[in-house]
């Protein structure tokens, strides 16, 4: 028998790992996210007592699922409100009756993909999609999610309740969209995963440990989605992209938060296993010949990862990939990055011609990366006065101290 502290840790680990799978199976049979969460939470509390007394069951996940189902049946018998929500519990009672031995985790119906499409429904706002995905599929607690967003736990709890209510009342289905709708909705799911990753990767706020956990969680969720949707190469494209960013985590920032630009990073400290895994994954994905924005971004990132020194970077290929990316995603951010690649592959003057095509776009004046990139290109083209002007603008609009500091250093080196 485990000592209580160790037992609690074990339970927490099991709950964290199996939460999404168990919750999605319960949602599929109960049809209601809040109820599923409540009975699963009840089951976890029962486990704390029972496992302490009787030791760990053979299959803790199946044990939790069975207890949660029984809790649902109990509620059904007690509660008329519940009875209306779940009009038919024949399925549940049959499961209960057939419960001879524990099922293995693999036998639990895997409904996580259905659930992630529900949590990332475009009818929910961005932040709620992220929070709900972390809560239901990541198994993070409300307090943990609140900490990630620097929100009060009460505020985050309210947000989650409101989102679950909207799903129930507005009739958002628990299903994987099919056909054309999948093409519309998959990018929303992938965007949510990428936002979770970036929340953990960008240096805007919060403690490093929490950020690390968020990035890891995003990678875990992308792996899960890739496993459940093997026919969609963009999922693996996103996964490879995250792994490549993550391989540079140790070198992209100094202890005091200062951002280190790619050219100054210590490449020997990049995580080779991460890079190798990402490159292998990307190669097999690109073979499917259904290229998309995430695969292209991953390919660009892989070219950086494979260059032993900044000087070895294959800028020609990178510029060509940005060209392709721009044809799929004609946005200012892609244009800016394309110009930077051209400035190295060809010349700063050629790059200016590309980046200046953005000058007519409304609101470009307030787009910080435009000024930062333009400042760098101008300075390398020898146009120092204009470069200084662009640096000043980029510095005024910098999103965080680390970036501001980096830009000031560069301006002062002019």
């Amino acid at each position, binding site marked *: 028998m485990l000592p209580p502290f160790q037992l609690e840790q074990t339970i927490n680990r099991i709950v964290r790992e199996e939460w999404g799978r168990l919750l999605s199976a319960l949602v599929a049979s109960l049809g209601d996210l809040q109820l599923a969460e409540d009975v699963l939470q009840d089951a976890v509390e029962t486990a704390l007592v029972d496992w302490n007394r009787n030791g760990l069951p053979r299959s803790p996940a199946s044990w939790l699922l069975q207890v949660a189902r029984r809790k649902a049946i109990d509620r059904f018998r007690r509660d008329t409100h519940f009875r*209306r929500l779940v009009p038919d519990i024949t399925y549940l009672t049959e499961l209960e009756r057939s419960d001879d031995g524990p099922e293995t985790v693999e036998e639990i119906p895997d409904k996580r993909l259905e659930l992630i499409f529900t949590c990332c*429904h475009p*009818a929910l706002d961005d932040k709620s999609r992220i929070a709900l995905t972390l809560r239901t599929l990541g198994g993070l607690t409300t307090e943990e999610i609140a900490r990630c967003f620097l929100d009060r736990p009460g505020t985050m709890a309210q947000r989650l309740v409101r989102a679950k209510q909207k799903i129930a*009342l*507005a*009739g*958002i*289905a628990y299903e994987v*969209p099919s056909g054309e*709708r999948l093409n519309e909705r998959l990018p929303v799911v992938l965007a949510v995963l990428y936002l979770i990753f970036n929340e953990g990767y960008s240096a805007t706020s919060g403690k490093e440990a929490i950020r690390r956990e968020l990035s890891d969680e995003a990678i875990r969720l992308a792996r899960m989605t890739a496993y459940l949707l093997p026919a969609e190469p963009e999922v693996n494209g996103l996964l490879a992209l995250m792994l490549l960013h993550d391989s540079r985590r140790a070198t992209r920032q100094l202890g005091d938060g200062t951002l280190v630009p790619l050219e100054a990073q210590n490449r020997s400290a990049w995580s080779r296993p991460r890079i190798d895994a990402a490159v292998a994954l990307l190669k097999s994905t690109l073979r499917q010949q259904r290229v998309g924005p995430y695969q292209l971004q991953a390919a660009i990132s892989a070219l950086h990862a494979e260059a032993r020194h900044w000087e070895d970077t294959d800028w020609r290929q990178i510029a060509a990939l940005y060209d392709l990316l721009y044809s799929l995603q004609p946005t200012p951010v892609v244009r800016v990055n394309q110009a930077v690649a051209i400035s190295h592959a060809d010349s700063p003057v050629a790059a200016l011609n590309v980046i200046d095509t953005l000058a007519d776009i409304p609101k470009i004046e307030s787009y910080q990366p435009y000024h930062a990139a333009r400042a760098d290109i101008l300075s390398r083209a020898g146009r120092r006065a204009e470069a200084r002007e662009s640096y000043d603008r980029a510095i005024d609009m910098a999103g965080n101290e680390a970036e501001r500091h980096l830009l000031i250093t560069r301006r002062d080196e002019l």
Partner: protein
Amino acid sequence: MQYLCLIYHAEDVGPQPGGPDFPAFMQAYQTFTQEVVEKDMLVSGNALQPVATATTVSRETGKVEITDGPFAETKEQLGGYYLLECKDLDEALVYAAKIPSAEHGRIEVRPVVVWDD
């Protein structure tokens, strides 16, 4: 489930009665209405007279107060609605997007409350 699709648009935007594109616009509405009728989804639907005809009534102060005009003075006004029977929100959104006025306005989709007995 029933969903109310509220059609909001600025009254001076889009095809206007008497304009050259108005007949095609009306035809598009007929086609849409026919589709939801044939699929047995239409509960009801109507176009509203212009917002200049609106009158707002309230008893908030204890007595009936009547004012000329709509409840909210916004550029986009409620111009009509469809009440549709749909499988789920996704289906409601597909049909809401097909409403011809979605091209120059917005459709707010609201689920209808099912009262407990």
